[in-house]
């Protein structure tokens, strides 16, 4: 058993077992989200056909990435280059050799294609790397950079390996020992001269340049070598790279050995890491793109498995977070779970029960700030049905008693909150620290006329305002002007207010009722956040 065999077996085992583990996770997390409703229509036969076409178009043409030309180009180049490299080069033993008689990696078109696909891959990867540096740096984690590094490493080390093999005198000697053992010294030196000149091999010894010897070398090459070796100039990238190595350095053999291990080692590493994080996205995202059938909205039927798959299919492209309509809330509050990409990752952790309490609280807050506007679902490159995930997780979080600030405040009565908060310095909200609710001028004009309560639509839809809302707006104003702020913070009127501003507009005395209610709510949210250990 050699390095290659052991490495291959281990890498394949890791990939296979890991992939199974990931797929198991799809079921597990999907189930943890709760049973999907049956409210979405099931497609008929034509619908399914349409979905198949749509899904294939998304997968093959990367339709969902077309909004961003840089990302689409980078990704397409990478796939066009790396795909064939995997199938026709890495797996040439099981694919290319059986199907193409007389295949040798050093023959054209394979040698040329290998370089071409390698170059395409490097170009594509460079574009993707640039994109991640320019727009996604703040979202990027270890797994993102590692994947780029590993693939880059495989590509570059491959070129370097080929370069060193081209230059390697040791390889030449090995070949001659196997295929031209009877060479006489004059023939040998001619062949060497030919190979040094035409194919870039680096020999320590001085080689002749006489034309008749080169002619002899060419003839011998045609007889013995050309059947398996195309000119190395067709390996246009690797051959060009040989000029980077100064002629005085004879490091080709060592380089070849080193980079063989690097190249093969990184390839095995990449394979072994396939189930880890971002490395799995070609599998998970590919399947997700097919199953979503090309739709950009939240109208495909929901399955437990599809949900779990969706959670895994994130490519961490950051588009959802860049387009999130409540991004300003993230800017102000600093909670990363307000933005979809991190919220998705944390939701996944939460479903595995691996999320810390502080982070859970952040997830709940992010879940409730989300307005379900559908934008992230529309721009998602992986076609994940984010809308469904958000709505289902919001529901399951609420059912587990985690309902965000609005839910927490309703777990106790206004009276209980008043007792708890009465002893504290409640702090002030507002730029100068003295909020509207603390200033006497805000209430000087209030004559308790109940106009604010009369126009309030929240009071209008309540059958019993004192039961449903604890206090009516003018009652809150009355308590505040008596300095009893603690009594008002837990009142459900404050937490049900829609800030429609009718109260403030209709107040005949200019009391800023809506602004004050909003301020109380902000203060309450701040107090609750402090209780959770976040601020």
């Amino acid at each position, binding site marked *: 058993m050699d390095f290659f065999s052991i490495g291959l077996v281990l890498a394949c085992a890791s990939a296979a077992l890991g992939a199974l583990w990931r797929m198991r996770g799809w079921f597990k997390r999907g189930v943890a989200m709760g049973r999907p409703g049956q409210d979405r229509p099931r497609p008929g036969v034509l619908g399914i056909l349409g979905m198949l076409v749509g899904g294939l178009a998304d997968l093959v043409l990367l339709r969902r990435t077309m909004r961003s030309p840089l990302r689409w180009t980078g990704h397409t180049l990478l796939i066009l280059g790396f795909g064939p490299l995997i199938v026709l080069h890495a797996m040439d033993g099981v694919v290319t050799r059986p199907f193409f008689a007389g295949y040798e990696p050093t023959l054209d078109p394979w040698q040329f294609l290998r370089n071409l696909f390698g170059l395409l891959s490097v170009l594509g990867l460079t574009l993707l790397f640039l994109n991640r540096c320019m727009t996604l740096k703040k979202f990027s984690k270890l797994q993102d950079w590692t994947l780029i590094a590993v693939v880059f490493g495989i590509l570059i080390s491959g070129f370097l390996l080929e370069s060193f093999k081209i230059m390697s005198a040791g390889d030449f000697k090995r070949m001659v020992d196997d295929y031209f053992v009877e060479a006489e010294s004059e023939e040998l030196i001619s062949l060497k001269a030919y190979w040094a000149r035409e194919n870039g091999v680096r020999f320590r010894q001085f080689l002749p340049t006489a034309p008749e010897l080169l002619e002899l070398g060419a003839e011998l090459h045609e007889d013995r070598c050309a059947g398996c070796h195309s000119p190395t100039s067709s390996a246009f990238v690797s051959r060009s790279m040989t000029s980077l190595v100064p002629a005085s350095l004879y490091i080709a053999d060592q380089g070849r050995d080193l980079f063989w291990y690097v190249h093969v080692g990184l390839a095995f590493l990449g394979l072994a890491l396939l189930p880890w994080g971002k490395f799995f996205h070609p599998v998970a995202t590919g399947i997700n793109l097919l199953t979503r059938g090309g739709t950009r909205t939240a109208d495909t039927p929901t399955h437990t498995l599809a949900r779990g798959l969706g959670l895994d299919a994130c490519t961490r492209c950051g588009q959802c977070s860049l387009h999130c309509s409540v991004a300003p809330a993230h800017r102000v509050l600093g909670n990363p779970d307000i933005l979809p990409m991190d919220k998705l990752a944390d939701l996944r952790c939460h479903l595995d029960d691996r999320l810390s309490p502080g982070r859970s609280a952040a997830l709940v807050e992010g879940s409730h700030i989300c307005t379900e506007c559908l934008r992230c679902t529309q721009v998602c490159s992986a076609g994940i049905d984010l809308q469904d995930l958000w709505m289902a997780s919001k529901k399951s979080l609420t059912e587990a008693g985690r309902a965000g600030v609005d839910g927490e405040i309703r777990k106790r009565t206004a009276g209980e909150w008043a007792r708890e908060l009465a002893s504290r310095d409640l702090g002030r909200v507002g730029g100068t620290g003295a909020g509207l609710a603390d200033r006497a001028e805000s209430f000087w004009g209030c004559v308790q*006329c*109940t106009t604010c309560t*009369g126009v309030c639509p929240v009071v209008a839809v309540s059958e019993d305002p*004192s039961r449903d809302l604890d206090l009516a707006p003018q009652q809150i104003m009355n308590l505040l002007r008596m300095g009893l702020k603690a009594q008002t913070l837990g009142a459900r009127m404050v937490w049900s207010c829609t800030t429609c501003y009718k109260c403030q*507009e209709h107040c*005949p005395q200019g009391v800023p009722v809506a602004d004050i209610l909003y301020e109380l709510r902000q203060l309450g949210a701040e107090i609750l956040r402090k209780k959770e250990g976040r601020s």
Partner: protein
Amino acid sequence: MKNYDVMVIGSGFAGMAAALFAAERGLSVAQTGATGGIDFSTGFIDLLAVHPIAEQKVWEDPFAALAALRRDLPDHPYCRVSDDEICRALEQFTTFLGHHGLCYRGRAGKNTLTLTAAGTMKPTYLLPCTAWNGVKAWEMKAPTLLVDFSGLKGLSARQIAEVRKDSWPNLKVARIKFPGMGGELYPEHMAWSMADPARRAELAQNVAPHIADAKYVGFPAVLGMTDTAAVLSHLEELLDRPVFEIPTLPPSIAGPRLRAAFDRGLPGLGVRTYTQKLITKAACSEEGFSFTAGSGSTSVDIFAKSAILASGRFFGKGLRSDRHRIFEAVFDLPVSQPKNRSLWHRPDFFDPNGHEVNQAGIETDANLRPLDAQGRVFHPRLHAAGAILAHQDWMRMKCGAGLAIATAYKAVASL
């Protein structure tokens, strides 16, 4: 910049009346206004019922009272309008309201006594038709059931019956649950819910057991917001009795009802209304007036050849004050007022003479044009109308709405 013939500043009784009269005269009208005094109205249109206020003398004939008033108080705004103008103004005003779902009635040349939430009988000139059966019931001292609702603070049937017990012994009371609402009740939400016939049926069912031999049934004024006639007649049908409304303590919904009628009717006459906007800037020139209504991104610039200042008193934000002086809010016109702060109020809150501060306001010439500090007309095409005028005590004289409508009429006629 928008260009109009008349800018009406204010959307209370005087402002609405001025906008109506000007529009029906064919002028282009813009109007601004916000919540103010009219939102605390009972809905009654008082003409004149008490003079002199120190004696609290109540008059049955408002026009006889007017004659006495003009004789005794030459500075009173009613001296600037004739009886004829008053009658035509009231006629035009109530006709308009009648077209928009608010019917009014009264007795020509006579004040009518009507029931209030406090149980007192208040003299007024024109009443909403929904209150008229109450007048009939009172005048006949008929056995009547007064209904109130648990949780509605603005009207207590028992209090009314208690206050009236000597003069109207046949008053019976019942407290019932208002359909579909509990806890604390607010008139505006109750009135809107009466648009639903099912709620009315439920209400009638709750009331029916209490009627017995009562000939009339009286309710707090929550019987509909924009469809009071329909609600009332439906209830009369269900209860098989004549029904009437009693205005609740302020804020009753009479104000919103009036506003709703004007909001529906005035734009139809071409009036450009800017609701919930106050004048924040006003500049005068020979050509007319440049106003800015509202502030910030929603402010509007308006130009008008003439202007009618019907901005009300303190609640209407036509007058504002600090601890020492009263100011007029739009043009900074001089305000006739007591010489210093200590003279604003008499020591006794219920002093029958009233308080001097209530008579502060804008002084005008015979055509209701405000005067400047030197006593000259401030601007030839600026008129004032309504409660902002000086030398009247509308609350104690029971002349508020009538004064507002009549002076608005005169102001528009003088344009």
